[in-house]
């Protein structure tokens, strides 16, 4: 079976002053539909680069990133952009941009601009998804720019889910001051992706935030460490591995 997302020996370099540094080093990773993957890593570990490559926002310097069997580097910029508005949704807490005076429901509905829906239909779908992420009818009419960090994160998730993507890519989505809010957000994320059968790739600087995801990986100095030797992700999320020993601390 072709994985939904596949990284094969993917490397990426970027300029750092007068020199070039390797930000992702021969990463290998397969994610099948319905699998949730958490990537734990510190700042500047390479996790954002990994996610941007997964979403087709950036292209690798070497190696292949494939979505549904198609090499992203072989697609035109327009095709990649269309993919990012349909089958792939990318969300980063830093990307919050609400227009002045725009209501929450309109903020979500405008993300559906490329779906061929009327504004009325888009609003209807937006309201439904907002309700699923815990933003009720009253909250949907609030001004988007006045939301708290926690509410804003839910609305961003609704915006990403509204397009019904097959792969959801989230970069440090829940930068919340309250731990219960963070845990609730991740519980919501897990159930929303599970119910829709979509694949999830989420990165965080906090390993605890990634609890309950099917597969956990770490990244440091651009090097991906997976529970599998080659970074291959199994098909069933939430699997249990037999024979895991407790480290000797």
């Amino acid at each position, binding site marked *: 079976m072709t994985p939904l997302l596949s990284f094969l020996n993917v490397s990426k370099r970027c300029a750092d002053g007068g020199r070039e540094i390797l930000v992702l080093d021969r990463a290998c990773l397969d994610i099948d539909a319905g699998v949730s993957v958490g990537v734990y890593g510190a700042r500047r570990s390479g996790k954002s680069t990994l996610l941007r490559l997964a979403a087709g926002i950036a292209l690798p310097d070497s190696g292949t990133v494939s979505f549904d069997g198609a090499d992203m580097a072989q697609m035109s910029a327009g095709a990649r952009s269309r993919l990012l508005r349909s089958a792939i949704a990318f969300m980063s807490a830093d990307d919050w941009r609400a227009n002045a005076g725009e209501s929450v429901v309109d903020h979500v509905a405008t993300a559906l601009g490329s779906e061929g829906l009327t504004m009325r239909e888009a609003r209807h779908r937006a309201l439904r998804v907002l309700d699923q992420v815990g933003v009720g009818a009253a909250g949907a009419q609030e001004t988007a720019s006045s939301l708290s960090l926690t509410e804003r994160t839910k609305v961003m998730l609704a915006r990403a889910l509204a397009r019904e993507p097959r792969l959801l890519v989230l970069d440090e989505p829940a930068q919340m001051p309250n*731990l*219960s*809010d963070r*845990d*609730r957000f991740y519980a919501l994320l897990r159930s929303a992706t599970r119910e829709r059968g979509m694949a999830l790739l989420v990165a965080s600087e906090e390993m605890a935030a990634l*609890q*309950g995801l099917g597969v956990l990986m770490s990244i440091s*100095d651009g090097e991906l460490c997976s*529970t599998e030797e080659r970074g291959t992700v199994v098909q069933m999320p939430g699997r249990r591995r037999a024979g895991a*020993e407790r480290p000797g601390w």
Partner: protein
Amino acid sequence: MASVSPEKTRWMRGPSTPLRGALLGLLLERPGHGGDLANRLAARLGETWRVDTNDVYRLLEQLEKTGLALSRDEPKRGNHRRTHLVYHPTEETSGALTLWMETLLPREPVRLGLQAKLSVARQEDAPRLLIALRAYERECLVLAQLVAPNDGEARSWAALCMECTRDAVYAQLQTEVDWATRTRRRINEFLERGQ
């Protein structure tokens, strides 16, 4: 904490103290036979602890010898002709649990196996160390996958305590992963400098 006689803290010696302490807490909640207590302990602490039923029986015997548990032969539920040992708390159990909650236990050595290797490694062992560190990092990730998630909805004190227990495991594993990656980086940087 006021000074306490060494007699009262004797049961807190050795690496099994956390399990003995947790067993006292479970006994105070309700009595149980060894298998029942082992199951309840595993449910509370999570899979990463890998609670061994035989260890639980051994620890219960130790607690009984120190007067913190009392076993009685009682008929099995559903088969009254057969009996099994059911452990009960004693008058001392509650006080011992309180004392354990107040006592700062000495830290146990962490990742002893890898530390021992690092402490005597020769430079030609660097590739082997890098492999061992990566394997250790992977092992920590595997364990982290076993931890059940918190959903931020702890509605009771017991649920909150279980969430915090899981958090403790995650915090330890994150620290271990950080240490493994940092050590690999330091070794690699040293090798790159050509020393």
